[in-house]
């Protein structure tokens, strides 16, 4: 169609005062506020939860999720979705485990490069075949899983000599898990690159209004392929983290991280329809999701109630963090 109407039918109340602006600024911090609130709640439920060791462990746990979510955030910002990240990470753990004996230290960059390539290929299929990313990556998910199953001989591939990936499982100064530091670094690098280059506005334009972006001469196709490529590379890097702590690779190792990763993105307040959001938000989102995943059972919530609470809290968290001033219609 050709004639959507941009009119926001219900417009803001008339009082354009300072508190409105503060409120708007506050929405940027909402993911953080949600994080702190959740931590407080868990601590009340079980005072033991708020120890340095406990928090360090949670940070370490969150690292692969942060990286996965950060990469996929770019695809979401472009208005698409990448459902293949978890399967790709699983496949990458298999590759890494298989290649470590021969390639040693080169295995890590090799796996990341291969994962980036696979991501880019999906992006290419999405762009060239004009297929919804949902379908391309859903298909990609099954294909990558099948490949992982076959390549691994349907089993765990043990890593005997993990000396070249071990560094990722160390602690900086005893307190900061290296993997978490690296995850934050990945987020920071992506954020900085977006900030100082035109990429940020290209991605947003693509996400908000692809046809307008294209008619403005924005390299929409390249931007999308690039986003899928980075998403793939991040899946590869997350896989390296997993191998470094699992001492093995497995064809389904990371599969269950898909929904948590998407949840992390949305909880961070990035609009699932594209355009608005950031990788920082996804970082906070990943921490919220991790706290929910490990926190609820650890403070003693029984399994059935844990699921119910998870469902309720995650919905409330999104209700808090989503910056609705940028999106008039929520689907």
């Amino acid at each position: 169609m050709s004639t959507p109407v941009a009119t926001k039918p219900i417009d803001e109340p008339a009082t354009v005062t300072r508190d409105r602006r503060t409120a708007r600024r506050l929405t940027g911090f909402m993911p953080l506020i949600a994080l702190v609130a959740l931590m407080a709640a868990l601590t009340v439920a079980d005072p033991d939860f708020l120890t340095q060791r406990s928090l360090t462990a949670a940070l370490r746990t969150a690292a692969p999720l942060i990286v996965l979510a950060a990469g996929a955030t770019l695809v979401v910002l472009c208005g698409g979705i990448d459902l293949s990240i978890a399967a790709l990470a699983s496949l990458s753990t298999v590759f890494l485990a298989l290649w470590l004996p021969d390639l040693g230290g080169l295995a890590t960059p090799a796996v990341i490069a291969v994962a980036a390539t696979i991501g880019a290929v999906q992006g290419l299929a999405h762009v060239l075949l004009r297929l919804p990313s949902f379908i391309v990556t859903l298909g990609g998910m099954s294909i990558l899983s099948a490949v992982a199953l076959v390549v691994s001989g349907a089993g765990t591939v043990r890593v005997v000599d993990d000396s070249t990936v071990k560094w990722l499982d160390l602690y900086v100064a005893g307190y900061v898990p290296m993997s978490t530091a690296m995850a934050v670094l990945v987020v920071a690098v992506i954020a900085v690159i977006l900030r100082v280059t035109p990429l940020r506005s290209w991605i947003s334009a693509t996400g908000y209004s692809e046809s307008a972006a294209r008619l403005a001469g924005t390299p929409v196709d390249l931007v999308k392929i690039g986003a899928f490529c980075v998403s793939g590379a991040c899946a590869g890097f997350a896989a390296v983290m997993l191998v470094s702590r699992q001492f093995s690779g497995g064809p389904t190792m990371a599969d269950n991280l898909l929904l948590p990763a998407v949840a992390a993105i949305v909880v961070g307040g990035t609009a699932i329809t594209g355009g608005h959001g950031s990788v920082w938000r996804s970082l906070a989102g990943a921490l919220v999701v991790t706290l929910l995943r490990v926190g609820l059972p650890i403070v003693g919530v029984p399994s059935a109630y844990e699921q119910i609470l998870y469902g309720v809290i995650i919905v409330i968290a999104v209700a808090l963090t989503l910056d609705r001033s940028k999106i008039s219609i929520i689907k």
Partner: protein
Amino acid sequence: GCTEEQAGGAEAASEGACKPSDVKLVGQVRNESNPYEASWLAGGDAFAKSVGLTQERLTYAGDSTKQQEQINQILARDTECLVMNVLPNGDSDTAPIVKGADRAGAYLVTQWNKPADLKPAEYKTWVSHITYDGVESGQQIGDALIKTIGGSGGIIALQGVLDTAAAKDRFAGLQASLKKNPGVQLLDQQAANFSRAEALTVTKTLLTKHGDKVKGIWAANDDMALGALEALQQAGLTGKVAVVGIDAVPDAVRAVQNGTMAATVSSDGTWQGGIGLAIGFCVATGKLAVKDIAPDNRAFFAEQFLITKDNAADFAAPKTNPSDFECGNVFNRVAGPLK
């Protein structure tokens, strides 16, 4: 500088120094929504109660990463006198659990899944690994199936989650059984992922594919066997095709009893849930010293029984009793060392 361990935190107690009341018991399985694993947690609760403690029940929804996350978090707390009885999601999940527990000095018993070259004997607090011999059980029910169909004809196989040791070993057992019986033909094998629902559709499809040639169905666990039974009922073939499974869940034992299923193999969830905690508890409280545990008991196959119509009645109720968990008896059900 970088360190391998995180700073701070509790020192593990020296072996055997724990007061019984200081011991913390943790049982971890996939979920509470299947009968087998629910019985595991119930067994754990029963044991904990018998020593005046409570079991912390953890479930991870079959999600490997979530299992690791929970273990990490548990180990980041006070690990003095911590005893864990863990069902690792897959082979690959065992190593990090073991290494974590070892570092933290928590007493650990694992069950079902572990890579062959990872050995409890090489660790201080990884007390034992318990499993059932999948090759044997696969073969036992294979043999029983073949006997039921009269030693010749076609069968189909429903495999478990393809990348688990249980699925692979059990299927290897079936293949061994088939080797001995050249008259029996494996018409088809499909993965139904240990799931009742998947087994139902796959079986229906295989029944139309192979028609009357199907005389028997070999399923790598009882859930799938029960799914296959439903498929047979829907195809009007109840009783005409023999079905076997593994796990001896109540419904399957009942089916064996009334003849709709040919055989299953006991793996006793209630016992598994209790025994892991019992072994750890005994070591933590000094009633058992790790160095005194026979090497063969550090990683062993537990006794399992083929259940057919003849002995099904004996298995209708769980055979676990409190005396199984006394420190002198904890290795009573050892059938042999892990191969």
